[in-house]
C-alpha cells in the first residue's frame, strides 16, 4: 500500500505571534518555523503503518517556497521514503492546496492520504475534506485511532459529543487529531540518512492547477487585550468578588 502525507511548514507553536505594524500580515522575520504539529502526527501514523507492514511506500508532500524542503527533510528523517515539493511563492489557500494534492494523488495513486486536521497558523481545518471532495473519496476527519484492513479503514473520530467510529472505503483521506499518536523525534542517524532521500520538485503550472487565492486579506490585527484583573487572597475573597462584583454566582 502506498501512503501520501501532506505536511505544512508553520510558525512553531511556541512562538509568540506578532502582527506587523501596517496590519498586512503576521511578522515572520526571524521567527522559528516547524512542521505543523498535526502533520507530525500524520507522518508518524504513516511511518507506523509502514513499520507494521501495512504499507510499503510513504511519500511526504509539501507546497510552498524553497524553505518547505526543510519540513520535507523532517518528514524523511521521521521515516518517510521520499518527498515531493510543490514549489511556489504564491500564497496558498486550502482549496488551492487540495487541488495541488489531487494532482499528486492522480500521479502517485496512493490508497490513503493522511493530513493534519488543521494548520495552526490559518486554523482553517479544510484541506483534507476538500481533497476528499475533489477525489470523490471517503473522508475520516479528526482521527484518534485508525485500523487498516482489506479495502477499508475503521477510524475513530474525536467529535463534540464523544467518539465516533466509522468505516471508510479505501482509497480514503484521513485527517489526524492530537491523540492519534505521539510523534517521534528523528534520530541523528536518520537525519543524516534523510539527506540522501529524494525530493522531487513540481510546479503548480506543471500540475495544471490554478492556485489564485479566492480570499483577499484586507487586515491582520491583534484581538483586543483583556484587562488584567486582581489577585485575591482567599477563597472567601474570591467568592465575594464573584458574588458582589461580577454578580455571576
Amino acid at each position: 500500500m502506498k501512503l501520501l502525507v501532506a505536511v505544512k511548514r508553520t510558525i512553531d507553536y511556541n512562538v509568540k505571534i506578532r502582527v506587523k505594524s501596517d496590519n498586512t500580515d503576521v511578522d515572520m522575520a526571524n521567527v522559528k518555523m516547524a512542521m505543523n504539529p498535526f502533520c507530525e502526527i500524520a507522518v508518524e501514523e504513516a511511518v507506523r503503518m509502514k513499520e507494521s507492514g501495512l504499507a510499503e511506500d510513504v511519500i511526504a508532500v509539501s507546497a510552498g517556497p524553497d524553505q518547505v524542503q526543510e519540513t520535507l527533510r523532517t518528514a524523511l528523517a521521521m521515516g518517510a521514503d521520499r518527498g515531493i515539493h510543490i514549489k511556489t511563492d504564491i500564497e496558498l489557500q486550502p482549496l488551492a492546496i487540495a487541488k495541488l494534492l489531487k494532482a499528486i494523488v492522480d500521479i502517485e495513486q496512493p490508497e490513503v492520504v493522511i493530513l493534519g486536521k488543521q494548520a495552526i497558523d490559518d486554523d482553517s481545518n479544510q484541506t483534507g475534506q476538500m481533497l476528499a471532495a475533489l477525489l470523490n473519496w471517503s473522508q475520516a476527519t479528526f482521527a484518534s485511532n485508525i485500523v487498516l484492513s482489506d479495502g477499508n479503514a475503521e477510524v475513530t473520530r474525536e467529535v463534540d459529543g464523544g467518539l465516533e467510529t466509522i468505516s471508510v472505503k479505501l482509497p480514503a483521506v484521513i485527517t489526524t487529531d492530537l491523540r492519534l499518536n505521539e510523534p517521534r523525534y528523528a534520530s541523528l542517524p536518520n537525519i543524516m540518512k534523510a539527506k540522501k532521500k529524494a525530493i522531487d520538485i513540481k510546479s503548480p503550472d506543471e500540475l495544471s492547477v490554478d492556485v489564485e487565492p479566492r480570499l483577499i486579506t484586507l487586515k491582520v490585527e491583534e484581538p483586543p487585550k483583556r484587562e488584567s484583573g486582581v489577585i485575591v487572597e482567599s477563597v472567601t475573597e474570591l467568592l465575594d468578588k464573584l458574588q458582589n462584583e461580577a454578580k455571576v454566582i
Partner: protein
Amino acid sequence: MTVLILAEHDNSELKRATMHSVTAALLISEDVHILVAGNDAGPVVKTASEIQGVTKVLYANNSAYEHGLAENVAPILVSLGDSYSHIMATATTFGKNVMPRVAALLDVAQLSDISSIIDQETFSRPTYAGNVITTVKSTDKIKVITVRATAFEAAIVGDQTAPTEEVKGNEDTGLSVFKKLEVSASERPELTSADIIVSGGRGMQSGENFVLVEAVADRLGAAIGASRAAVDSGFVPNDYQVGQTGKVVAPTLYLAVGISGAIQHLAGMKDSKFIAAINKDEEAPIFQVADYGLVADLFKVLPELAEELDKRGLSKT
C-alpha cells in the same frame, strides 16, 4: 440574496449550535433558509421552522442522512447551492467536517470560524490560536462559511412557523459507514452552552481528583472542561478539551483550576465574560487573562470553595 443554513441534529433534536448560525445569517440577509437533511427528522423540522427569523425550512428525508456523514450530506447542499449567496453551518465538528467538502465541490473557498461580519462578502476570523484576527473578502459567487458559535448569540424559538418544503435528497454514496458513537454521558450542562464552566488541568494530577472539580461544578450548576494535558493524561474524556483544537467556549464565568494558560488553551476560553483562576504558581500565564486570580494549592482551596458555597446558600445541589 438568500442564506442557507445546514442544521445539526440527531434526527430528534435540533442542536443549539445551529441557532448561532441563524443569528449570523440574519446579519447578512432577511431571507434565511434551513436545510434539515435527516432520517425521519420531523421534530427537528418543526423546531427549525419555529426559529425567529427563519423564512423557510427545506427537508430532505433519506436514511442516507441518518448519521450526518459528510459524503452523503455534501451532495444535497451542492445541488441546492446555486440558489444561495451564502451557505453556513456552525463550526462544530459536524460543520467542520461537512462544509469544506461542499465548498470544494462548488469550487469556492471556505471561510472558517467567522467571528464577525463586516458586509456580505467581508468577514473576520481568528487565526493563530486567536492571537490574530484576520479580515478577508471573498471573491467567490457563493460564500461557504462556518460560524464561531460564541461570537453570535443563539437565535430563539418563537411562536411563528416558517413554511416547510420537502426536497429530493440523494442516495447513500456508500463511501463510509457509521459504526458507533460513544457519548460521554453527563448530567451536567453542555460545555458550549453552559453559563459557568469549571475546568481542570494537569494540576489535578489524576482523574480521581476531578471529584474536587465536580463538587464545585455541581454546586454552581456548571459544566466541566479541561486542558489538553488533562485529556491526554486520561483524566477526562476528549470532548472536555477547551482550546484552539478543542471546544471554543464563552461562558459568563470560566474557572480554571491547575491550568497554566498556554495560548492554545486561552484560544478556547478568553472570550468568557469573567475568568477566575486557581493556580499555585503566581507566574502562570492564566493570571494575565484572569479577572480574579487565587494563588493557592487547588487541593486545599477546592474543598474550601465547595464548603463556602454551601455556607452562603449558593449551592444548586
